[in-house]
């Protein structure tokens, strides 16, 4: 391995969230020292993931199958759709097992200051889903940030003609605290106490 290869690896790893150049260097050294146990399996896993992972055409979840296992699971309650900002929020909710309906991932929030508009988010897909007979309720679980709440308002506006009940997670979600940071107790309580809009 030439020094440039190592440098390149460090540079790539340093682009990961939460890693700076220093921790990337440490990670690379650790990988090299544990080549058989870690580096090769990691590299294979990355290859496989890159090849097989796709976005669920229904809900926007990431998995190796499309539709994803949640959308394909007949035991999940298809009458309720929970709208989240990011896949990370969906996964966080799944970890708590507090919600047994289906999801819809917007892929972000409306943010004029960051140049993110309705056409950049999967809102049309949600409107189409909400128009299906099976769907009775849409729960908006965007963050309690200004952009998150503005997006919730926009989405509920767009769902106005779909004839579904629209609700939002109860107050108590910390401002700026995305779903990802919630524990399951808080999430169950917020789900139970959701208020309709």
């Amino acid at each position, binding site marked *: 391995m030439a020094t440039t290869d190592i440098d390149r690896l460090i540079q790539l790893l*340093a682009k990961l969230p939460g890693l*700076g*150049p*220093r921790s990337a260097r440490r990670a690379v050294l650790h990988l090299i020292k544990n080549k058989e146990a870690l580096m090769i399996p990691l590299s294979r896993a990355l290859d496989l993931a890159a090849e097989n992972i796709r976005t669920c055409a229904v809900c926007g979840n990431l998995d190796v199958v499309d539709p994803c296992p949640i959308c394909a699971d007949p035991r999940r309650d298809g009458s309720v759709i929970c709208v989240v900002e990011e896949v990370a929020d969906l996964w966080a909710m799944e970890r708590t097992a507090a919600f047994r309906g289906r999801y819809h991932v917007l892929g972000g929030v*409306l*943010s*004029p*200051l960051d140049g993110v*508009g*309705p056409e950049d988010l999967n809102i049309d897909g949600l409107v189409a889903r909400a128009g299906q007979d099976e769907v009775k309720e849409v729960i908006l679980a965007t963050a309690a940030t*200004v*952009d998150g*709440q*503005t*997006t919730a*308002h*926009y989405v509920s*506006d*767009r769902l106005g003609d779909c004839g579904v009940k629209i609700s939002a997670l109860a107050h108590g979600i910390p*401002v*700026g605290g995305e779903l990802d940071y919630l524990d399951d107790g808080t999430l169950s309580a917020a789900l139970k106490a959701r208020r309709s809009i």
Partner: protein
Amino acid sequence: MTETGRSALAPDSAGTFSAVVERTAVTRLSVTEFRSYGSLKLDLDTRPVVLTGSNGVGKTNLLEAISFLTPGRGLRRARLAEIGRRDAGEEVSDMVRPWAVAAQIALGEDCYDIGTGCAPDMSGAGRDKRTIKINGEAAKSQSALGRLVAMQWLTPHMDRLFVDAASGRRRFIDRMIMGLDPEHAGPVSAYEHALRSRNRLLKDGVTDSHWLASVEDSMVRHGVAVAARRLETIERLRAYCLVGDGPFPDAKIDMTGELETWLQELPALAVEDRFRDRLAASRQMDAVAASAVVGPHRSDLTVHYAGTGRAAEECSTGEQKGLLITLVLAAARMQAEERGYVPLLLLDEVVAHLDAQRRAALFDRLRHLGAQAWMTGTDAGHFEPWGSDAQFLTVTAGTVLAQTC
């Protein structure tokens, strides 16, 4: 001081509080790579602090360091890149240099270690921010500081508060409210964010009315909350600004603006509806003006000299200074009453403009308030009336600080 003219709501101006009130005090301060200081450590007690030294030796820098023990950008409203130490004559660039302020804060019987500072963001993403530690633990946000430390300051920069743009007065009142309720920062920045978002949409010619209405809904909810909170606070603060005749003029204060007028007449929900309608109707006009014609960003804090009824901006420089002192002392007193802690007071170059009689009167008020006031000046003689009731420190050029008593 006489009993006349004092509102029943105002606390006894002789200095007794209706509840147990403890003082907030800095008992240890250390600054590192901060402005003109390389490294400096001070051990203090809870008495007021007098900092004397010639101009430009870094007295204000120390007050600024203390001001970072509350949320925000400090008493100079500095950018993070300006704060790290630079050699004399060295230009300020956008590069953030590491700096730190650490302090031990005494709140009555309790003690807290607070650390704050800035380390450059190594990821290169430019997301530099001020970090905060309380008792060794990283705090999630600056509001944790606001819940702990109460502070008021008065600096020469504020001399033109009544004359300059209304934005300065809005900041002044919002900071005062945050001193009483740190949560006020939430709706204030949420409103600003929503307002800037709408300005951008209008500038970009976006016509999606669902989108505009959603952003306006955020403006309405947070904006009315901000306006209502300002009105409420001014209502309570008013009594503290009318303490009867003393060395400093009584001030008559009001919050003025369209939202405020509506709030006086209508329930908050009706004000929200009216605000929403006005925004929806004024999109074209606002696009041209590059901002919204109505909202709490257009409100103003108006101050009148109670004795003459004259508007503060028309008063003499000396009268304006007096009104500022009245406002800051009133806010400190209200903070003490409502939070149970006398705030720290940072008074930069305040006594320089006062004659001996008013200086003595100010010191008297500070004594009664029981605050640890940090006072700067060039002439140590001005502070003589404090005697042994204050700690005297001499600031000399560079970074050295010598205790003279």
